[in-house]
C-alpha cells in the first residue's frame, strides 16, 4: 500500500477529506520525529516502539577494491514491533 492508497483509506475510515488526512498524517509524523530527535522513545501500545539508537563508528572494507573506510558514528531510528503485532504476523 503506497502513501496515496493509505491516505485514501484513512479518509474513508475517518470521514475527512484526503487533503486534511494528508496534513494530519504529516503533522503526526513530525510530532513523532520531533520526539525522536529529542532522544525520546515513542511507544505506541499494541503497535510498537520507535527509538533512536547510536551506531558506533566502524571500519568497513570494500570487498572489490579492498579499500578500508572509516564509517563515522550515526544515529538511526529503530522500530521494535510489539509482541501483539509480532505474534499476529508470525
Amino acid at each position, binding site marked *: 500500500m503506497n502513501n496515496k492508497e*493509505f491516505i485514501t483509506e484513512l479518509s474513508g475510515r475517518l470521514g475527512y477529506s484526503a487533503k486534511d488526512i494528508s496534513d494530519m498524517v504529516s503533522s503526526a509524523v513530525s510530532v513523532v520525529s520531533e520526539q*525522536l530527535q529529542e532522544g525520546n522513545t515513542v*511507544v505506541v501500545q499494541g503497535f510498537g516502539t520507535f527509538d*533512536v539508537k547510536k551506531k558506533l563508528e566502524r571500519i568497513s572494507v570494500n570487498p572489490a577494491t579492498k579499500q578500508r573506510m572509516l564509517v563515522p*558514528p550515526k544515529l538511526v531510528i529503530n*522500530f521494535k514491533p510489539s509482541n501483539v503485532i509480532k505474534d*499476529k*504476523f508470525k
Partner: protein
Amino acid sequence: MGERINIQNLIDLFAEKKGLSKKDAENFLKEFFALIEKALEIDKYVKIKGFGTFKLIDVDSRESVNVNTGERFQIQGHTKISFAPEASLRDQINKPFSHFETVILNEGVDFEGMSVTDEISDNEDEAGVSFEEENEISSNDVEYEDLTSSMQSEEPEKVQATTTNVIEENTSSSENISSVNADNQQEIIGAEDEISKSSAEIDKEIVTSHEEVEIIATEIQQEEPIDSKDISGLSKEVHEEESSIQAAEAVSYAAEENIEDEPVIASVLEKIVPLKGKHEDVSMKADNAEAVDKPQAPATLAEFISQALEIKSKEKKVVVSNNTEATKEDLIVKSKEWLAVIPKEEPTPKETFVSKEDSVSKEESVPKEVIVPREVPTSTDKFVPKEVSAPKETHTEKAEEESAPKQSGALIEELILKAKAEKVQQEVIASSQNSKMTIYYFVAMIAFLSVFAVAVFTYIYNPDFVMSMVPASTEKTAIDSTKVDSVPVKKEAAIPMPDTIPSADKKDMGRLTDTETRNAEAEAKRAVAEAEKILAESRKKDKEPVVVKESAKANEKAEATDSKEKKVLEKLNPNDYTIAGTKSTYTVKKGESLVRISQQFYNSKDLWTLILKHNQKVIKDEDNVPAGTVLKIPNLRSKK
C-alpha cells in the same frame, strides 16, 4: 532525553499542534496505527510519506544451537516487521552526527582496537576530538612541528623539554636504533637536564648560580674529555686554534652537524677567557640568553655571564642537534614507508655500499666546508682530500649513482657561498654582537633547512638512494648519538659495509669506556688504523658477493638454456609419424595417463595421440584411462 512518550502524550502533542480536540486526535492516531497494521496484513507493505516504509519480511527457518546445552534446534521460519525510515527523517535524526564523513583509510594505518575499544561519547565535541586523535596516531611529523614551532620561541627550557620528549618518543618508536644509541641519548638528556636546571637557577640567584654554574661547567668539562678523547688530536688542535668568533660560528655550524659537536664544546670551553675580555659582547649575548636583568652587571659578574653564555651556547647546540636527530629519525621513518611501498626494488649490496658512501660523503661535506673557508691549519686540509676521495671512488665504482655525489657537490657549493656570505656579514656586523648572534642562529636555521631540502630532493628523484639510505641513516643516527665518530676517517671506515658497522660501533663503545684510563692520542691512532683495516675488509667483502652473484647468475642461465634444449628435443609432431604395427602391450597403472605413457615409451609427451589412435577400441575416455587397461603401444615410423 530518554523519556518514554506513550500514545497519550502523543495525542496531547498532536492535538495541540493541529488544534484538534483530544478526542479527534486520539481517534486519528489510533486509526493511523491500526491502518498501518491492517495495510501490512493486506499488502505486506506500507509507505507513509515523510515517515518511512513498513514491510513484512519472511525469514526462512534455520538451524541454531542452544547456547546452554549445545543442542541443535530448528528456528521456525517466520515473518518480521521492518521499518525503513525515509531519507529525510533519517537525516533529521542523524543531524547531531551529520558533520561526520566516511574517511578512506590509507595503507598501513592501523586502527586496530580503536573502533572497538573507544566509546564515542554522546557529546559531539568529544567525539570529534577522539576522531582527530585517531587521525594523528603515531605520526612523528606532528611532534616535529611542535618541535620546530617551539624552537622559534625564545624559551630554551621549553624547547629542551619538547626535544627531550621527542627524543624519547623517537627512541621508543624507532626499533633500528641500537641500545648504545639509546644509552647515549639518555646521557644527552641528562646533560640537558643539568643545563636547563642551571639556567633556571641563574635567573633566581646570581651569586649562588655562579657557583653552581662553575660546578656544572666542571661537570661538563669532566664529560668532555671522555668524548673529546675519541676525537683525533688533529681536529682538536684545529678547533683550539680558532678564535672566539669562530667558536661562536662553529656553534651555529655544529648545530647543522652533530659530528662537530664535541670539538666545538671543547673550543667553546677554551674560549671562555677571550670572551671574558669582551664584556659588552658577553652581556649582550647573556641578554639574548634570557638574563635580561643583568646587562648592568658589574665586572665581577663578567665571569659568570661568560659561563652562562657558554652553557647557553651548548644548550642551543644541543637543542638544534637534537632537532637534526629528530628529523633524521623522521626521515628514517619516511624511508621505511618508502621501503614498504617499493619492496620489489631491492638494492644490490654493491648499490647499498655505494650510496651509503655517497650519503656519508654528503654528510661529511658539511663539516668539511665549514672548516675550509675559515682557513684552519693544514691538519684539516689533510682530512679534506681524504673525504673528497670517498665520493670519487664511488663515482668510478658506479656511474649510475652519479646524481647523489652531484647533489652533494651542489650542497658543498651552497655551503661555500653561505660561509662566504657569513664571513662578509661577520665583517660588516662585527660591531653589533647581539644582532650577529641572531643572524648566526638564523643562518644556521637556513643552512639546516637547505640540507633538509636537498635530502628531500634526493628522496624524490632517487628512490634507490632513498632505500639504501635507510640502513645508512639509522647507522648515522647511532653514530651521531654515540659521538664517537667525530673523526671523518673513522666514520668513512665504519659506513661502507653494513656487516662491519655493528662491530665497529661496539669497538667504539669499548673504546669509550676504556678512554677514561687511556691516552687520547694513542686511541685516535689505533682508531685510524682499525678503521683502515675495516675499510680494506669491507672492500674485499663487497667484491665477493658480486662475484658470487655473477657466478650464480651464470649457473642459472646455463640451467635455463639446458632445459630449453631438452624441451626442443622433446617437441615432436605426431603428424610426422605413422603407426607401423604394435611394438608391445602395456597395462595402465594407477595414476597414469596417456601423456605419461607416451613420455615413457617415446620420450615425448606429444605422441600420446598416436597411442590413443592405436587403442581407440579400448579407450573410452582419453582423459581418464582406468588402471588395468591393456594398451597396445604402437611402433612408430617417421614419415621423413
